[in-house]
């Protein structure tokens, strides 16, 4: 049986791991390669590296990091942050990334999804969507959730699927950093309306939240950062708890 995935997310700035609290206040949480190795050994199913640096050196720094991670880590990993062209993706996949995640660049140029899928295949193209509710409607946001668009979450998600993306990483900006649980209602709707895997992100605070997002949110995978980085939740304990709740996991 296919298992539900637990995915620690490593926010990367200038080659170092950081975690944003509501994407603003950054705290250092260590060396990315070392942290990735620890996660691979302690039961993470997959890793996401999200590059949030904004320097001209960014592209090369990220490509170098991907190579160093691929050398050491024996589980799959996804890389995202500032990716906006076929060339960007080419070097990251070539260096050993399993998947890439695109966000703002897909909103600005939806054709990019089709182009990437045609060249590299659906299986490695993840589209990340950040959204929050405005007057009761889920609205897609850009730039780490700061800039609202006119796109409705569910309409955009459907378009992303139709254009060939293999997976959606949905972050609720209303939940991110709150440690109050995932956006399970929206997640369940995405999972029902779409036929590609959905990764839940934003709001993980305790182990029950993961059970809830798999049961109520129908998520295929759950992503979190600080609860793992600061050892508030051990992945081994989390998976044992999920198994007790009859959720299929890889132990």
């Amino acid at each position, binding site marked *: *049986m*296919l*298992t*539900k*995935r637990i995915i620690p997310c490593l926010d990367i700035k200038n080659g170092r791991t950081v975690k944003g609290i509501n994407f603003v206040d950054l705290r250092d949480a260590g060396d990315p390669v070392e942290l990735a190795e620890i996660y*691979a050994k302690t039961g993470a*199913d*997959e890793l996401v590296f999200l590059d949030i640096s904004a320097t001209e050196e960014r592209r090369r720094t990220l490509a170098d990091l991907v*190579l160093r991670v*691929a*050398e*050491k880590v*024996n*589980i*799959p990993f996804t890389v995202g942050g500032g990716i906006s062209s076929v060339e960007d993706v080419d070097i990251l*996949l*070539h*260096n*050993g990334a*399993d998947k890439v995640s695109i966000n703002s660049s897909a909103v600005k140029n939806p054709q990019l999804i089709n182009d990437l899928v*045609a*060249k*590299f*295949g*659906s*299986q*490695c193209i993840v589209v990340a969507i950040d959204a929050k509710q405005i007057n009761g409607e889920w609205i897609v946001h850009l730039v780490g959730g700061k800039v609202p668009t006119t796109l409705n979450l569910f309409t955009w998600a459907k378009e992303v699927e139709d254009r060939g993306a*293999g*997976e959606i990483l949905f972050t609720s900006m209303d939940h991110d950093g709150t440690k109050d649980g995932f956006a399970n209602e929206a997640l369940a709707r995405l999972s029902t309306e779409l*036929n*590609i*895997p959905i990764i839940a992100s934003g709001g993980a605070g305790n182990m029950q939240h993961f059970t809830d997002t798999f049961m109520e949110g129908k998520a*295929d*995978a759950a992503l979190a950062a600080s609860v793992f980085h600061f050892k508030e939740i051990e992945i081994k304990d989390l998976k044992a708890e999920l198994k007790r709740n009859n959720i299929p996991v*890889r132990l």
Partner: protein
Amino acid sequence: MKIVIIDYGAGNIQSIKFAFQRLGYEAILSKDAEGIMTADKVIFPGVGEASSAMKKLRESKLDQIIPKLKQPVLGICLGMQLMCHSSEEGNTQGLGIFDVDVVKFSNEVKVPQIGWNQITNLKSDLFKNVNEKEHIYLVHSFYAPLCKETIAEADYGLGYSAALRKDNFYGTQFHPEKSSEVGERILRNFIETIHTPN
């Protein structure tokens, strides 16, 4: 021990190279017939779309070389699928090594399948020291149905081939290079346990 990864422009080659490095072996990349035919072990990788990958194989005439190889060959993911008779993806004629047609998962399940599934009914030395129901990592939308060449099964809405074998040819739908310690055992078996038949 000369391990060659076929480099035809359609594969996550770096990851496979690093996986062997972690096991203490150096794998080299090659795209020419001589380099591939003189290998002790051949890895045939593949990610992406079937018809364009097959086109690349034909352009480099590797479609003629691979089926004639006598040493152990391991196709991974799309590599395995291209070793089959055909694929529904892009109506692709495959290498015809495995007598099975690759088809798409139905919409009863989410497509692609992404993540860790279990392998069962293990029937080859490739799985020495691997237990029934251990987890391996997969990413795919198309699958090879169960057939007489199936040496491992997985279940995703239906049972299908997680691995195939015919003579010296092996194929895994999953990515051993990304399947943690289980995958490392399988790669090690391919190198240390599977030998060229006399």
